[in-house]
Each structure stands twice: as C-alpha cells, then as structure tokens.
C-alpha cells in the first residue's frame, strides 16, 4: 500500500496544511510505512466489541444555566493576529 503524493496533497487540503514539495515527498514515504505498520489492526477480531471513545466511563455531567461575565473585548482580542475595531479581521470570505 503506497500513500501517494496526490493522496498526501488531498489530506493536507482537508487539514488546511501547506506542505512544501519536499514535505509532500517525505510525508508520502513516511505515511506509507506507518500505515503499513498500522495494518496489523485489521487482523484483530473485534466482532461485537463496543468502541471505547472516552478515557472514563461517566455520564450526565452538567452545569447550571448561569451566565457569568466573559472577557472584555480587549482581552478577547489581545492575541488576535489582526483586529479591526472590536472584531477579528480575516482575509475576505467569498461566499
């Protein structure tokens, strides 16, 4: 099983990751060998086994419907790479 450059590029798009040409090459190589290694999972019989998605088996954890003051806009926006007034600014979104 080879994980091709094209497949790497497709997954990178999905993950919004820019990869250089050399990164695509090495990623294709490395992912191929990692995925081959991961293939061993397919041989395990898991018929009827309930998936375990959580680290702890608890349920029904809630908070009361109470509001508390959040961050003032200046603190909320303090880490923003770009702001315009009290908004986060991003390159134009084309709809």
């Amino acid at each position, binding site marked *: 099983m080879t994980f091709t450059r094209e497949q*790497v590029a497709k*997954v*990178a*798009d*999905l*993950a*919004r*990751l*820019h*990869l*250089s040409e050399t*990164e695509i090459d090495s*990623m294709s190589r*490395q*992912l191929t*060998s*990692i*995925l081959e*290694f*991961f293939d*061993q*999972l*397919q041989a*395990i019989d*898991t018929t009827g*086994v*309930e*998936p*375990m*998605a*959580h*680290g*702890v088996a*608890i349920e029904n*954890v809630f*908070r009361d419907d109470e509001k508390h003051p959040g*961050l003032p806009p200046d*603190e*909320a926006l*303090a*880490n*923003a*790479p*770009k702001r315009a007034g009290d908004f*986060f600014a*991003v*390159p*134009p*979104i*084309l709809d």
Partner: protein
Amino acid sequence: MSIIEKSACELIEMLGNREISSREVTAAFCDRIEAVDSRVRAFLHYDRDQALRRADEIDHRRSAGQEVGLLAGVPVAIKDILCARGEPTTCGSKMLEHFKAPYDAHVIERLDRAGAVRLGRVNMDEFAMGSSCENSAYQKTANPWDLRRVPGGSSGGSAACVAALEAPLSIGTDTGGSIRQPASLCGIVGLKPTYGRVSRFGLVAYASSLDQIGPMARSVVDAALLLEAIAGHDPRDSTSLPHPVPPYRQSCQQPLPKLRVGVVTDYFGEGLDEEVAVAVKKAIEVYRSLGATIVDVRLPTSAHAIPTYYVVATAEASSNLARYDGVHYGHRAKEYRDLVDMYKRSRGEGFGHEVKRRIMLGTLALSAGRRDAFYNKALQVRRLLRGDYDAAFQQCDVVLGPTSPTAAFKLGEKSDDPLAMYLSDIYTVATNLAGLPGLSLPCGFTKSGLPIGLQLQGPAMAEETLLRAGYMYEQATDWHRQTAPLAGTS
C-alpha cells in the same frame, strides 16, 4: 547536603520550622538554573525576579501567621503546556510563540493556592508530540546523565530540570507515556494519574481522551505530595472525577503487606534492551524479598497498542489542533492569496514536522471511507486493551514491567525515523488508552551509567496503591538517591 539536593518534603519541613525561607530555597534553585541550564536547556521561560517575589510573598504570609498551603514556598517547574493568565504558553511551538493565555489552568490555580513558587516554563516536544523533546521549536533539552542524549519526551524539560536539580518538583503531562518515559530516561519518579483524577482545564489538548497531568519528582513521596496538591474534582472539566483526594503524601509511606505484583510477560520479548530487562527482573526479586506475591499476567492486546494509540491520539489531535488557524490567536502567515491559503500557510509555517505528520495521520484516520478501518477499529481494540487490564487486575494489585524498552538514546538518533520513535512508547501507551494510572521509578543503571525505569500500572483510581508499592521498592533500593553528573558534551 545543599538546598537543591533536598527533597521537596524535606524543604517543606525546614520551611515550616523556619529553618530556611522560601526566598533562600528559590534563590538556590535559580542559582542552579543559571549555572547549569545553558547545558541542560530545560527552561523556555524563567524569571528569577518573579519567582523571588512570589517566594517573598509566601515567606511573608508564613511570618504573618497566615494559612499557607501544602507546597508553601517550594519551587515547581511547569511544562509549557498549561495556561496561566498573562503568561506565555508556547507548547514548544512557533504557532504559539506570542500567545498569552487570558486565564489560569486548574492545576495552575491549585499550585498557586498550595503556595507553590512557579519557577518557570520547561521545554517539551511541540504540542506534547514526541518521545525525545527534540520536536520543540525552541531548543533541544539534554539528558543530565549524558548531555549527548535525549531526556525523553514529551515532558523532557520537566524530567531534565528535576534530574539536574534545577527544581525539586515539576509538572508534566502524559498522553502516551510523556511523563513516565522521560522520568525513566532521566532517573526520576513520574506518575501518570487515572484519566479524570486531575482536571485538564487549561491544559492545551493533544489527545483529549488520553491526556493527563501528573507529578515528576526525585522520590515517590515528593511525587505523592505534588499529586495531592493538584488532584481533585473540577466542574470545568466534564471528565474530571468526583472522588475525594487521599492524603497521598502520608499514605504512600505505609507498606502493602499482601502486595500481589503481576509481571507482564508480554513486555519481555523482542525489542527490549537486555540491560533494561535485567534491571527490571532484579526489581521483581526485590518485591519478592519484600514479601510480595509475584504472578505472571498477560496483556495480549498490548502487542497492538502502538498502532491503536497512534490512530486514536492523532485523530483527536487533528481535531484539537484545527483551532490554530491564524484567526483568533497564534501565528498568521505574512503572505497568502486568500483565506484558505492563509489557513494553510499559517499552519504550514506554525507547526513542525512531527505535528504536521500527526495531523495528517489523524485527518486520514477520520476521513470519509477510512474512518471505519482506522478510527473505529482502533476504538474497538482500545476496549480489548482495557479488558486485558481488567482481567489482569483480577490476579494482582499492580502490573510491573519496564517503562521504556531502552535507556536514553542519542540526540538525533531517531529523529528521521518516526516509526522507530513511536516504538519507544511501546510499554506506556496502553495505560492511557485504558485510562489507568502508571508510575515510573528508577530501578538501575546501564553499564554506561544511564538510568533505567521500572513501571507499575494499577486499576483506575489506584494511585495510592501504586505510590505505596513504589515507596516500598524505593526504601529497599538507592537508585533514586543517585545524582546526575551533567556529564558529556552536548
């Protein structure tokens, strides 16, 4: 014995008796950092003045007769992955180089309430992804036992600074062994608590269903002390457990008269370094001599723990790290064509290779058409793994094995071979997948003087049992009293 050589518990006693001030203690560790950290390179952020101001505050409270906490006046180093209000939290990543959190993590609050003196931020693999600390975007931390070698990871800075006597205690995090493996490689004690024992609120997530925060120290009692300070319920973390926190520091010193130790036979096969195997087998004999019953147990699914872990962890990571996109905080690329390109370049520039690799793996594992074969399958194997442990704990109180298949490897030795690096987590990842506690403690040295770690794993919420079993062993040996020579040229 100089201040920096003393245990945290000894320091607390001296502070309580007014034999010494927190300023003196803090200054001694700051001096040490200033003397050796250029070689160890554990600290990413360190502010002597701030630490001393905090020490003075604790001294003042104490002399004014005010209530002081469990850790009052004792310095603690923090892995650079816990948010603290107004302070940098880089996670070892360029992505968060200039990020300052607007809030405190639960564990930071707990440490502050306990009167700890936060000494600074220590190095880690970027976003806790790695087993050598070489994936930090900022510096490569050295192993204090041999400066040409890695301290392990991802909590490499936390382990190295304690081993190098730069801090008596440190906070690490463990997603697949990130506390235990560096503790093993640096010859110290590290505990990964039961999932839910310590609140993750304010811990920058790598893999949410696996991440836990835990203590790192030079002795079991010190680790117990730090755990006591940080454990407990937090309503801000839905996965935090409500169980009361035992007085670990006291209770860990009571031996277990009828301890049953399960030896995981699956761990003693191919890939385990001979010197490590010998040291761990000697540890089994120590337990036998202490009156413990030794039984062989099997964890058959653990043979598949590595692929299971890397599917689950990377899937969650690909999701957790989606938020770093250059919009609300973090790195934004200077040049881009449009919004999508801005996302891609910001992430491409902000993340290092290993992080990108894991995002790719995780995205793949969750993508349409592949999710059943990878992610869902791994979750089923995860359940089988947990079942293995449940069966094993029918026969024994703790399971015993090596923490890491080898002692510390050389810087650069595995950095071009991700799969080889992944395999260094072979004995630790299953603990996280099962949500159980695991303790690593020193159990010997290789001929070349590198520490070897012993791992004890227990049932959920059995931290006390692990600490008591660890303390018994520690009392019978003196591995933990050895001090790293800071030898070798890094």
